[in-house]
């Protein structure tokens, strides 16, 4: 009896161990490829297509905006690609939130793990980290073998896709912020609506004059963002426009940088602007608390619902016009030759007019190729949405955040805290940004 009881205790121990071990085992071990996406380490998932024998499965991790854009992508573009390339099965996986660490976690999976991402959608600021870790396929080599595709990409967007002299990813869509203006308030204040041509649009002086006139009662002229990474992004436009060197990381203590920061600080100090911690939130503009707000084209649906007159114009120009180019890239990771071939085939389709025009007109973002920007269907869409001309016209003047591996540390918290000190705590711009440059130099020297 004792021996029997001892046996039971060992059995119970073994059962507990096996339950714990199976709970901790790789999702891949418990589910056949493509059959059970719920075991993924990432967030919400899209229904998974079956993978035919002989076809290569390529996982695409993305954060395409949920709703109309994602539906269009899943129901129109992915099937169209599948019809063209039966040898490839693209498996989209919605991550829910654009988070670089999620992608990095996926890339840490074993090369043969069926859940590992082979392609992913992310902003260009991660490029340096990927290059350092050597996880990317040879995009530069592929693109060099397809000059007709490379030459068709808008040069400024190609710059965003490049790092250390090579193209590292393919541009999916691009965007920038531009100035939303409340046309009714402009008219009431007697301020002329600026041109949508970046070369002819308002100057910094005209902008400063406009915010003075537009500040009336509870309404402020402009909205300044604080306490977020967004401020570093919008800062780039002002910095570049003031003549700052944009070939690498901004010279934070240069005259152009000091001028750019001081300009916004003066507007805020003079009571012609209010602050927000969420620059991307259109509520202050929609609620008519500000007459001008820098925001992006992804708010297409919300803008269409407004009951007052509005339009969009470029950033004001100082030494030259500029825009803070953003958007998301298609990164292609190293994989088997079949997987890489399918990923590049998808990249080629993504850069086609069919894809670019369809995706950008649904999402409100901007095409990354010259031919799509000139496409008749896209031109018609632009004619129906004339405010978008400001975004399109700005694109050639776009400058991007440098995709160096340390970018994450520099933008937030280093820049964010310096910016807050200046905008909120009245710190001296020159002193604080000189200190910031020293902090950045120390970080880069490590």
């Amino acid at each position: 009896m004792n021996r029997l009881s001892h046996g039971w205790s060992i059995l119970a121990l073994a059962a507990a161990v096996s339950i714990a071990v199976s709970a901790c085992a790789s999702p891949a071990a418990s589910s056949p490829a493509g059959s059970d996406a719920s075991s993924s380490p990432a967030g919400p998932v899209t229904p998974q297509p079956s993978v035919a024998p002989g076809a290569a499965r390529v996982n695409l991790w993305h954060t395409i905006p949920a709703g109309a854009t994602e539906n269009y992508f899943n129901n129109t573009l992915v099937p169209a690609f599948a019809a063209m390339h039966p040898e490839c099965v693209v498996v989209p996986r919605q991550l829910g939130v654009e988070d670089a660490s999620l992608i990095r976690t996926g890339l840490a999976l074993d090369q043969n793990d069926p859940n590992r991402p082979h392609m992913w959608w992310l902003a260009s600021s991660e490029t340096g980290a990927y290059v350092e870790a050597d996880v990317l396929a040879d995009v530069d080599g592929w693109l060099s073998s397809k000059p007709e595709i490379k030459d068709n990409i808008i040069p400024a967007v190609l710059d965003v896709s490049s790092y250390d002299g090579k193209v590292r990813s393919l541009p999916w869509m691009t965007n920038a912020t531009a100035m939303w203006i409340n046309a009714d308030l402009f008219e009431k204040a007697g301020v002329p609506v600026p041109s949508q041509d970046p070369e002819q649009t308002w100057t910094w002086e005209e902008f400063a004059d406009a915010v003075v006139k537009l500040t009336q009662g509870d309404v402020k002229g402009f909205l300044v963002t604080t306490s977020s990474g967004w401020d570093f992004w919008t800062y780039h436009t002002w910095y570049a426009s003031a003549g700052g060197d944009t070939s690498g990381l901004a010279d934070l203590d240069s005259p152009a940088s000091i001028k750019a920061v001081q300009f916004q600080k003066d507007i805020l100090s003079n009571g012609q602007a209010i602050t927000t911690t969420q620059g991307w939130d259109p509520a202050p503009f929609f609620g008519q608390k500000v007459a001008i707000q820098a925001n992006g084209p992804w708010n297409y649906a919300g803008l269409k619902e407004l009951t007052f007159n509005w339009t969009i114009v470029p950033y004001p120009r100082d030494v030259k016009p500029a825009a803070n180019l953003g958007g998301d890239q298609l990164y292609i990771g190293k994989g088997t030759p079949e997987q890489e071939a399918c990923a590049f085939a998808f990249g080629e389709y993504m850069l086609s007019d069919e894809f670019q025009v369809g995706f950008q007109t649904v999402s409100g973002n901007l095409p990354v190729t010259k031919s799509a920007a000139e496409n008749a269907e896209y031109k018609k869409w632009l004619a129906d949405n004339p405010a978008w001309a400001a975004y399109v016209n700005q694109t050639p003047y776009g400058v991007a955040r440098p995709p160096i591996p340390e970018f994450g540390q520099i933008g937030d918290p280093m820049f964010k805290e310096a910016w807050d000190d200046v905008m909120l705590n009245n710190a001296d711009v020159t002193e604080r940004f000189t200190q910031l440059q020293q902090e950045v130099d120390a970080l880069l020297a490590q």
Partner: protein
Amino acid sequence: MRERLHAAGWGYAFISPALILVAVFLVLPIGFMLYISLHKWGLLGAPTFVGLDNFVYLANDDRFWRSIVNTIFYLVLAVPSQIGLGLFLAILVNKKVLAREGFRTIFFIPLAISFVAAGILFTWMFATTPIEGFFPRLLASVGLEFPRWQTTDAGWAMVMITLMNTWKSAGYCMIVYLAGLQGINKEWTEAAAIDGVRTQWQEFRFLTWPLLAPTTFLLVVTTVIFTVRGFEPIFVMTQGGPAGGTTTLVYYLFDKFPDTVGIASAAGTVLLVGVLALTLVQFLAQSRRATYY
């Protein structure tokens, strides 16, 4: 001997699931954190051993020291306020008043709301920019200005986070204190009255409060741990701002992830040691106190 071994076998069998879970989800991650704290790593590729470099970096980083000061400030504000309010509510709902059960439920409900939802709710109600919330507008209507906690006043930002945290967590303290209060023998109250305790304050001061000492100790230990590791209120309400004024050690750690996981792990190690040291101090302090029953 054989029977003792047999009994021990059963004992180990029964605790093994818990042991395995603790090992896998607590001991292993802590061990991994200690390991990574000695490496340079960004999640991609293999970690590179750097010795104590990450700790040296922390020692020389002003932002790290400021995060420690902010954490202590948050602790000083948040722990007494939630325990104090919890005790006050527990005393109230321990009395025989109309709809007592209803009040208990109402005071406990915030505990069931997520920190994210509560943070968004408080931010809306108390927003000072860009669109003013209900309370700033209310004050403005009588000619007063609400503190600019989202922009210029980091001290007030921490107060607002504490306010939300207290509203959210006081229900937990209330429930624990309520259990403590209901465990006090009525006969002791009667004996205290015979010994000269006349007012309710005297009863609280000389009888209830000392008898609640073990409960208070439990609450101090748990709320210190909950508060030090608190992340969601800060993430939702201030993102560590304005100007880093609400960047606590946990938020500092978050800022370092995923680019510098080694530094984040070193900060996590400091946090772990700090919490252990605080708990040890509390245990030592408690052991010197008289036990009343």
